[in-house]
């Protein structure tokens, strides 16, 4: 028997082991977003305060975070102070209040500061559906043209911001400058 044939099982095993080892560190709950590179979906929804109607055109002009949140979402409460801090640093954040009770949302924003420059009231979840939202909190990074450039699922804490999002946001800001 040819010698090199004896190596085949070893090579197959190493290949499988490498493949499975990588699989150990993948998060199966993380779905790749299909929205990257696409324009923010069209919508026409009232603001949380109910004083105006917002559309996708209102989100254009500046790179921003679009944060999908709700009062029923426990981890949104964890994320909220971080967003407030970022907003204070000058990061543009828009809020999508997803499938929430309007009165609760208003109360929340009054009680815990409002980091959002615009508050979109998506009570029926229609915008969330078009965004492919499957659980709050989710945050989209849009550029100044309103194109979705990145999606982050889960709680934004200081570390996530520093290591994953700050750089991307800064790149969009730099890109927007002529």
């Amino acid at each position, binding site marked *: *028997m040819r010698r090199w044939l004896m190596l085949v099982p070893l090579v197959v095993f190493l290949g499988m082991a490498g493949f499975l080892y990588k699989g150990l560190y993948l998060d199966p709950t993380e*779905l*790749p*977003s*299909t929205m990257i590179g696409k324009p923010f979906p069209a919508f026409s929804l009232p603001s949380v305060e109910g004083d105006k109607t917002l559309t996708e055109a209102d989100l254009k002009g500046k790179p921003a975070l679009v944060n999908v949140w709700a009062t029923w979402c426990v981890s949104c409460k964890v994320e909220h102070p971080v967003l407030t801090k970022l907003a204070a640093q000058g990061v543009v954040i828009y809020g999508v209040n997803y499938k929430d009770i309007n009165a609760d949302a208003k109360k929340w924003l009054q009680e815990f500061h409002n980091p959002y420059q615009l508050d979109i009231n998506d009570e029926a*979840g229609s915008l969330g*559906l078009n965004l*492919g939202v*499957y*659980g709050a909190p989710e945050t989209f990074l849009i550029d100044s043209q309103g194109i979705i450039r990145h999606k982050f699922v889960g709680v934004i804490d200081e570390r996530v911001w520093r290591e994953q999002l700050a750089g991307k946001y800064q790149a969009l800001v730099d890109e927007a400058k002529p």
Partner: protein
Amino acid sequence: MKRWLAAVAFGLTLTGAAHAAIDTYEFANDAERARFRELTQELRCPKCQNQDIADSNAPIATDLRREIFRMLGEGKDNQQIIDFMVDRYGDFVRYKPALTSTTLVLWFGPLALLVGGLVVIGVIVGRRRRTEPVAGSDTLSAEERQRLDTLLDKTKDD
């Protein structure tokens, strides 16, 4: 016999109740109901790891069922509804993934392994058959016998 019939009848009432719990929608006809069932069983709930949206209690699954019902009412065909879901949630939501370059391994990997296995078995069997002594030669030739004897003698000396 009577008792047995009663048990079957009772079982039937149970399945009826189970279906009633799932179907909260009024369908125009049975064909539409069947398509709804087929679609909700073919699409995976994005939030839960391994449940179809017919089966899941997650709010997102409820929403998606409602969307499917709405689209069925609008007269969309199955492919349009599946495309709508894939546009938003990606290939993840399909239990029958489309054949693309990224899903090639998924579709043909098992077949390739099977064929590979058959080839290996074929090679081994073929080789064994070739090296197998010809029929009737299970007795040793004089030369072989002599060699065997020397080998056995050698071990005896040790």
